[in-house]
């Protein structure tokens, strides 16, 4: 655990020698390239960066990063990463997961990592399908989706990953898209700077089993009218010339989209990711309809809360600060504590 050495790294330094084996055209390639290009910005030595993943297409990610990495078991990456992060606060620990891995088999670990505020950067690649097992519906698939396991259409309602994360007390929640490298990097940058859990949903295209799932958000002819690009401190407007906006109607519980021309400027909500009450970010997370209209991307929420790691390490440090003996002396004292008796 040597001290970090200031060496200027490049994207190439973060590429491992392993052949990347996602399907040609998979959205994961774009995310990998964006992250490899972005990592040098953080000025964290490669040896202090760890990617932990579960199982699924996205979970192959660590093999392709020339950092430390562990490809673990289905759904458990947040739990494994929790043990690593809390015991090694000097590391930058990233979790790469998918919609099935994080929200189905690993749902419990995800919500508990978020409520604890473990210092993890959790990247959820959401393609709304099980890809590695060849095309079953996932917990983010739309109701009625026809897949191999739901020939009559899926019957269960999907999770909204951001709503779930917010309900789990997440201190940082963001969303971005695989195809928009600049935006993706900007959200990751904010996530990396956040102390505590940072949860980032990345819309990712599976061109084999669910191609075009987010097409309206990518197609130049529709995306501007569909996407709401959140910017801290800015009024929330979108569409050509900002023709749509987000307002908080009096008497209502949530946020709604209006024609900008129909409201007074002061009625337009100014985005503030630091609002303590999660209800605001939650309302943002509920804006998109089934057709993906009104999909906010960017940082929904970023609030200060002590990380689990810092609290736990603080307790250890406080206990150790009182120690004046060697570990062996301490141990001898501990073994001989309580009622003892001596036989001569």
């Amino acid at each position, binding site marked *: 655990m040597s001290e970090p050495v200031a060496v200027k790294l490049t994207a190439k330094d973060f590429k491992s020698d392993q052949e990347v084996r996602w399907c040609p055209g998979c959205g994961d390639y774009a995310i990998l390239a964006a992250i490899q290009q972005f990592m040098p910005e953080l000025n964290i030595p490669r040896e202090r960066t760890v990617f932990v993943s579960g199982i699924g297409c996205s979970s192959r990610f660590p093999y392709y990063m020339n950092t430390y990495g562990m490809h673990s078991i289905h759904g*458990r990456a947040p739990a494994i990463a929790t043990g690593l992060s809390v015991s090694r606060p000097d590391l930058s620990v990233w979790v790469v997961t998918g919609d099935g891995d994080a929200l189905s088999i690993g749902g419990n670990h995800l919500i508990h990592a978020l409520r604890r505020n473990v210092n993890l950067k959790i990247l959820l690649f959401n393609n709304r399908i099980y890809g590695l097992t060849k095309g079953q519906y996932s917990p983010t698939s739309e109701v009625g989706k026809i897949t191999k396991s739901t020939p009559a259409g899926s019957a269960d309602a999907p999770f909204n990953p951001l709503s779930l994360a917010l309900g789990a007390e997440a201190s940082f929640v963001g969303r971005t898209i695989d195809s928009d490298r600049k935006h993706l990097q900007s959200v990751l940058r904010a996530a990396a700077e956040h102390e505590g859990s940072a949860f980032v949903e990345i819309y990712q295209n599976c061109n084999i089993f669910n191609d075009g799932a987010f097409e309206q958000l990518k197609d130049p002819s529709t995306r501007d009218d569909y996407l709401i690009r959140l910017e801290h401190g800015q009024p929330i407007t979108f569409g050509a010339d900002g023709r749509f906006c987000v307002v908080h109607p009096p008497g209502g519980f949530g946020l709604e989209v209006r024609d900008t021309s129909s409201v007074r400027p002061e009625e337009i909500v100014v985005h503030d990711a630091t609002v303590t009450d999660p209800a605001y970010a939650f309302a943002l997370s509920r804006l998109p309809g089934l057709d993906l209209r009104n999909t906010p991307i960017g940082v929904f929420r970023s609030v200060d809360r002590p990380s689990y790691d810092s609290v736990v390490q603080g307790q250890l440090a406080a206990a150790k600060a009182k120690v004046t003996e060697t570990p062996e002396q301490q141990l001898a004292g501990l073994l001989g504590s309580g009622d003892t008796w001596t036989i001569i």
Partner: protein
Amino acid sequence: MTKQIRQLDRVVIRFAGDSGDGMQLTGDRFTSETAQLGNDISTLPNFPAEIRAPAGTLPGVSSFQVHFADYDILTPGDAPNVLVAMNPAALKANLADLPRGADIIVNTDEFTKRNLAKVGYQTSPLDDDSLAGYVVHPVALTSMTVGALAAHQVSKKDAERSKNMFALGLLSWMYSRPFESTLRFLERKFAARPELVAANVAAFKAGWNFGETTEDFAVRYEVKPAKMQPGTYRNITGNAALSLGLVAAGVRSGLPVFLGAYPITPASDILHELSKHKRFGVLTVQAEDEIAAVGAALGASYGGSLGVTTTSGPGVALKSETISLAVALELPLVIVDVQRAGPSTGMPTKTEQADLNMALYGRHGEAPVAVIAPRSPSDCFFAALEAARIALTYRTPVILLSDNYVANGSEPWLLPDVESLPDLRVEFATKPNGEDGTTFLPYLRDPETLARPWAIPGTAGLEHRIGGLEKADKTGDISYDPANHDFMVRTRAARIETIPVPDIEVEDPDGDARVLVLGWGSTYGPIGAACRGVRQRGLSIAQAHLRHLAPMPANLGEVLRSYDKVVIPEMNLGQLAHVIRARYLVDAISYNQVRGLPFTAAELETTLEEVLKNV
């Protein structure tokens, strides 16, 4: 009045009452006083899973048995010489275990019509002839306690609750116990409420003085100190010893201990204990579930901690997939299974040894791990160190099979010299190990231990990826090569099979035994006591006890084959016997009991004598 003092060599006392009567505490204090006197001791707590079962009912009875002697003893005793029954339920639940002539001290205040009816007594057993074969001492424990505390500033409820201290005082007088440690204990326990210290001390003294003055107790007993090895002792339960063993493993390895745990009976005490030792750098995480608990421990091991998870059988089942991952990753991991009666929730506060098959085989794929089992409460300390030694040296998961009997039972422990404990220091990888001097091969093995390098994150130049996918030998790259998989599966098996473990030792004082009793884990005491009994009758019998269940001692086959008969008593339906028959082709006799209680020495003795008759 001068009382007669009678010398005894051993006594078994059982304190029994309602779950809320404080019987565990009473037994614990009596044990501590007895330890101070220098007797050898063995204890057996027995309590329901319900925290407060309905008052006065049979399922709500909680008991604590203590066996003490002027010689070395191996078990908490088969049958109590004295029963302290705090209510009719406690009497009814325990009477069948008492030999005729035993002393019964009853709290007459609780023998009300209502309480008698609750447990199905038509008439009070104190008034009819049903207890004629016993020496009954009726004592109005509650009312005398309340009377003794009349001048104290405590509520009636608090006064009544002190009745266990009255009982403890009486028993301490009866058996001439030194009581200073109890007075000190009360001062510590109620430090925040001095009026309760005074009340409890007064109740204790009232009990003591009652013994001294009443004519009902004509005899006072003494049990002289046992001849024990010189040194400093403390009385310790298995769970406490195991916790200290893990702390010691951290000190002796120089690594931080990381415990990931989820609350489960009867293992939670280890989490409680380890969470107190932060000054040793011990980090505890109470995880969201059993899977997260082992996952976090494995993550910490990956980062250079000694990763530990503690649980009971149902928890091991949940952790199984992660243990297999640890097998594939070849990282150190200690899994403590404090076994309880199963399947499913079973009887969570009762003992059993039925997780051996799960420990040996309960994983997908060929996923061998090391398995060890402590033989007594204090042995849990050394077993924990041994588990850590194997895990760290051979970079493997190790399952430590404790059970409820050793976990909650206690015995005197001769404190070890810290410097004499094994040196567990390990070396992390610091530089590339490839022939070219720049490549790092995460699966290049140490030829002696077959362990791979432990290269922890933060080490520059050794960045590498590991995972659950099959890895190519040496490079650790993903590999689907058939020959490589065959090689890796065999290597993982060899890694465990070639761990050097001490030869099994046979105890055969006569030297001519033709029957060997083989046990493992917590049955050591009862088997040892039974063998003593057999030998006292002039018969020869040999005893051997397994600590390492995977791998097994190299000389085991030879030892087994040198006897005409091998008997394997287990608190399961023959799991070790099955392994022994399969591995060594020895026609072992399997003797089983699954009653949630340890074997009694007497029943084992009878079984062994039957076998001896037919040799």
